[in-house]
């Protein structure tokens, strides 16, 4: 499993790097003590930074959620461009007949970023404990956090086994059709 994880991580190196950077950035923002900030390690912390155990709920949420959000925005932007041009319009070649590498680059970078959205399992487990632990939160917080936590929790496990590569590829196929359903109404 670790091998698959690392293969996926290095195949999606741009997303791996960006996720670690955003995690680093968020940890600095929250002044979370970082013990190791090597982004591309050959272990399960590849694409993450090693930080102290977070004991504050809002910090734990922020450290899990904001790298996810940042990568999601970047990933959606790049995947939209790549998927629309490659899958939807079918611009495989430039007008000069040369393969349109830039479009494929957009797609690969976009997919790689979407593949690396989710936090480490340890972080979501800690978040789970801080939100859903006995007496840790009131019901409103638990309900409000449920959708986001559910996504982060499931995503962390999918990412840990490298399955997010498949989900992000599948999503990239669907994305142009989602945009095609929305954009004509917005543009007019």
């Amino acid at each position, binding site marked *: 499993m670790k091998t698959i994880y690392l293969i996926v991580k290095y195949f999606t190196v*741009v997303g791996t*790097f*960006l996720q670690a*950077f955003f995690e*680093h*950035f968020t*940890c*600095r923002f929250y*002044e*979370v*003590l*970082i*013990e190791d*900030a090597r*982004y591309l390690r050959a272990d399960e912390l590849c694409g993450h*930074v090693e930080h102290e155990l977070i004991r504050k709920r809002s910090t734990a949420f922020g450290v899990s959620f904001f790298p996810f959000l940042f990568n999601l925005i*970047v990933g959606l*932007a*790049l995947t*939209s*461009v*790549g998927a*629309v*041009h490659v*899958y*939807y*319009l*079918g*611009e*495989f*070649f*430039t*007008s000069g007949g040369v393969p349109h590498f*830039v479009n494929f680059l*957009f797609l690969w*970078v976009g997919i790689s970023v979407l593949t690396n959205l989710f936090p480490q399992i340890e972080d979501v487990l800690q978040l789970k404990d801080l939100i859903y632990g006995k007496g840790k939160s009131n019901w409103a917080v638990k309900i409000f956090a449920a959708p986001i936590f559910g996504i982060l929790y499931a995503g962390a496990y999918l990412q840990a086994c490298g399955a997010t590569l498949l989900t992000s590829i599948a999503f990239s196929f669907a994305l142009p059709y989602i*945009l*095609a*359903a929305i*954009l*004509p109404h917005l*543009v007019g």
Partner: protein
Amino acid sequence: MDDRKEQENGVQPENDGVQPENDGVQSENDSLQSDENGEQTLHDELETLAKVFQEELDRAKAEAKDVAENGVPDPEILIQDLEEIPDDAHTDGVTEEVIPQDELCERCKERQRGTKQHPDSPYCEECDEHLRRYPFEWLHIVLVLLILGFVCYGGYVFSGHTDAFVAAAKADRYARQNLPESALENYLNAENVMQSAGVNGEMVYSRALLTLYRYGYINALDEYAHQIRGWELNLPHFRKVKQALASANAMMATANAASELVLTYETTPAADIPYDEVLAKLEALKTTQIPAEELTEAQSEETTGETTKAATANAQNPMTYDAPMVAFYQYYLALLCEKDMETQIGFLEQIQSAAPERIWLYGAPLGELYAKTKRDIEPLCTRLAEANAQDDTPVLLHAIAKRIEGDYDGAITLCQERIDAQSNMTYELYRQQSLCYLLKGDSAKGYEAANNAYQSTSPSIQLCNTLALAASAAGENEAYDEVKSLLEGSGYTVSKEVTEYRDGARTIESILSEGDYDLT
């Protein structure tokens, strides 16, 4: 670091043994400093002190060596070179507290671990502060800026191609909604926008091509086919396009071959057409392989470049003539030979069972025959409406069915609704209205409706005959003469039914309520 290494090697306790001697030297040094007898005295004293110190050191080293060789430890000895003693060690006679190894900061290994805020922290105050602000590497920042720049470039590219994407999306939506006219109009728009933006959107062209194929515009496929490279047709994402092109080419080759057999008899009286002979030739086509050159010719009439090569490659695969298309020509032959409706229905139902998706080919004539034979047209009309929501054929078939059932007012109302909605079949709806008015005995309105039909399109022979009949019924002789001359000018004559009506041999009811229920 070396201190720690020695401490780790168990030498640390010896430090305590040397400490008093060090203090003694310090006191002698103090007394020398207080002596003001001159520099020479001070120098001599210092020399003496150095000598004593060196002797002590040599002795300590010798004993340590001895201990190392004999294995007998002497905790009183400190083995330490002078150079190894830190400059700030034991100044002012103050002794620092020695930190146990397991209490040293994990990062610097020098200071006491734990901070005010986090006493359990494995880091000292300074390292804790540093790690909470773990610095970014400049290379990382540059890479992130590059990626963010790439995102901005992506946004710029996307915004430049938004119009093309939106046009294609609209076309696709219309195609999904079974609105082929709107879809094809938007595909054309998308093609223009993409060309102006320098985008070669092969997937858009492929979807446009498949939409054209789906609605039977097989002659127009080349418009988009030449945008796709020939070798790409062998790739999985163009598999449907390749199949559609091959099928369309087979249909066109079949139409060419069947036309040669059938269309020569279009103006021949029904009785003179060798029906059985032509029918047998058509039937034989179903099992005949299409000659490669004929297929290539059919495929590449308007094609250039690599698509032609692809078409030629397809042509090398043995293909038989398209059986449903042959069946359509058999139906047409039966129609020309005025065979009974059941025979005609038989051929059209062959197409329906062999290629139900080609409803554009058999739907309308089969529906009309069903209406004339008083079959249930509803299922077919439903399928026609599902296949093409912009086609008024189902309405027309309902109007015909109502007329044949004698519900003239219902048929007139139905037709009027679609005429008001500016249907693309207005002329035929007017014609059906005209027939209904004639059957109702309202010749004036019948003529008016026929004339409206005549004015709204380039008239067919059937429409000319309808106008001739209505004009005859309404006493509009000038209009009749005009239509008659138009037909004769085109090599046709007014139909037998009309002339018989004018001669008084037949009534409108006998023409429109019996036999074919319509004019030829």
